[in-house]
């Protein structure tokens, strides 16, 4: 087993720099998810670790070993590709054992490994088939099997579930998590799906434009995003971000005005110290949809605040119903219990749990940190 360390890693394609100096320490046995919008460099970063791309500058260590100039086959890694990348002319068995054949593993050892892996993944009955005769989920299993027989120190997954339908994706996600718990190997997993990232990772690296914005456990990424980018990227539906003005009216207030009137949110107690510096200036107020509900439904003991708005759209999702309303020119979403829904174009009394509110500096995008300072 190995930890992975990236030091000042940069990658240029011609004049275009896609990885702009990344430092990352991944501990042994960790499940790290690289997540970000398309084109943020997450797949390139994975390919740098796998050795399928060469570094422009910087160093990569797997375990004690510096692997900058080590070929992919000698890095003790196994990889699962987005398109499965099965060899179309080979049977499932030959697909899985191809790596062992090129490494001259003796036949008995090959057969033993094949038997173990095919049992683990429930693909024993498929071994003689060609990839073209398999369903998407079965292909995915074979691709995983090909990685597993390698018994590597590090597993690399490049969007492995993005070609599956929604139901299968959830199943395979659970299965990958189980496999990781069982094998305890270091995993780097690339995805653009933030739900996949949240549910799988021990730590998430949120990437944007060739840099890592935040590297932290899923809960921290969700509850304490460092900036506007991370806050709006993680979470679905994403965080409501309102432009507000900090005013002093019987305590600090966050004021937002539109044609339906003015609303003055109270400043969360913990953030008051930081917010005071922005008096008479603007801030972004971030409210996750689940922190906005019907009046009287917030858990007791929370700092709540009520306001009224018209409902524009109602979107039932099953467990929750999304109410879309407009506030300060922004389309905002509240996630309410289905029983709390109301018809479109009626006035609705919302209640916000202000303890969950986040504030962001509009220029730097950074989140304001709580202070112990009392007002």
């Amino acid at each position, binding site marked *: 087993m190995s930890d992975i360390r990236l030091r000042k890693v940069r990658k240029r394609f011609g004049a275009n720099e896609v990885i702009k100096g990344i430092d990352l320490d991944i501990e042994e046995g960790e499940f790290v998810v690289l997540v970000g919008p398309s084109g943020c460099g997450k797949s390139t970063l994975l390919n740098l670790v796998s050795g399928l791309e060469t570094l422009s500058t910087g160093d990569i260590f797997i375990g004690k070993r510096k692997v900058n100039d080590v070929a992919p086959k000698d890095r003790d890694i196994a990889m699962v*590709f987005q398109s499965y*990348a099965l*060899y*179309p002319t080979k049977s499932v068995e030959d697909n899985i054992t191809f790596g062992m054949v090129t490494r001259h593993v003796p036949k008995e050892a090959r057969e033993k490994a094949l038997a173990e892996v095919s049992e683990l993944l429930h693909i024993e009955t498929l071994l003689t088939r060609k990839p073209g005769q398999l369903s998407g989920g079965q292909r995915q299993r074979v691709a995983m099997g090909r990685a597993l027989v390698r018994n590597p120190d590090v597993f690399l997954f490049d969007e492995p579930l993005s070609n599956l339908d929604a139901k299968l994706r959830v199943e395979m996600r659970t299965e990958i998590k189980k496999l990781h718990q069982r094998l305890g190997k270091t995993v780097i997993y690339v995805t653009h799906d933030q739900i996949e990232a949240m549910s799988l990772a021990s730590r998430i690296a949120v990437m944007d434009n060739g840099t890592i914005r935040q590297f932290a456990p899923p809960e921290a990424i969700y509850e304490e995003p460092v900036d506007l980018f991370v806050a709006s990227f993680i979470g679905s539906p994403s965080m409501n971000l309102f432009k507000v003005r900090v005013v002093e009216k019987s305590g600090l207030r966050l004021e937002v005005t539109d044609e339906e009137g003015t609303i003055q949110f109270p400043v969360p107690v913990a953030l008051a110290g930081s917010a005071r510096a922005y008096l008479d200036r603007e801030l972004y107020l971030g409210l996750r949809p689940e922190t906005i509900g019907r009046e009287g439904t917030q858990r007791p003991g929370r700092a709540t605040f009520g306001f009224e708005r018209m409902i524009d759209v109602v979107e039932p999702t099953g467990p929750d119903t999304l109410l879309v309303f407009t506030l300060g020119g922004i389309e905002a979403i509240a996630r309410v219990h289905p029983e709390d829904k109301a018809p479109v174009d009626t006035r609705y009394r919302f209640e916000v749990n202000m303890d969950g509110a986040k504030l962001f500096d509009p220029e730097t995008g950074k989140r304001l940190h709580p202070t112990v300072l009392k007002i």
Partner: protein
Amino acid sequence: MRERQVHGIVRPKNAASTALRLILFAVLGLFVLYYLMPLIVMVVTALKPLEEIRTGTLLSLPRDITFEPTLRAWNSACVGVRCEGLKPYVWNSIAMVIPAVVLSTMLGAINGYALTKWRFRGAAIIFGLMLFGAFIPFQVVLLPMARTLGAMGLAGTVPGLVLVHTVYGLAFTTLFFRNFFISVSDGIVQAAKVDGAGFFGIFFRIVLPMSPPAIVVTVIWQFTQIWNDFLFGIAFTVGDSNPVTVALNNLVASSTGVKEYNVDMSAAIIAAIPTLIVYVFAGKYFIRGLSAGAVKG
């Protein structure tokens, strides 16, 4: 008359459209006749005795079918001063076409693979230059090629001709394979790299087994081009090393006294048969290969 159901084609049933279809089929029938006419004349003439050719018309069917002219064309007609028929020249052509097709196809496959799956600095420029090679007319390369063959000691030999066709064919074979491999997922090659296979390991064990559609297209193209070539054959070989196309020309030109049309026609058919065979046998795989390539991945 009951209209026969044709699956999947919806068409209106009225007099105007029926008339249009009749006209369409009449025109198509004319085209068929036009294209088949030379073949009919060749076959009919080849099977007639000389007497019948002189008295009958061009299109009249043979009364006594004879294979004697065909046999003469094969092994005793005079090509120049040598009276052994086309047989030795057919062997020359086979000895030329097989290595030339195999070599140019293999090299084209490796080129296409390297250009698409191991992209290196300048790959696009190199491909552009090779593509340019496909547009160079035969005549342009005649003189430099003659000098090269002379310098290599291959002038006037079948191996020399093999070299010429291999080099000239590379532009086309590289183009065919490059266009095929560009559609093969890079992930497959990357997976094989992680699995520990090298440049040739991936080529022979992963990529080449996926390539029958491209191989069939390339082989048909190259075989037809090389077998039917006349200019390189007449320019770079002499007498005994002539390919069959050149020998056919000489055979037709060197008849003395009475013009033996039936022998000439037979010789022409003999020279054309191998390309026909390749189409008949490989054409099936050609179609199959195309559709297999279309639905894959």
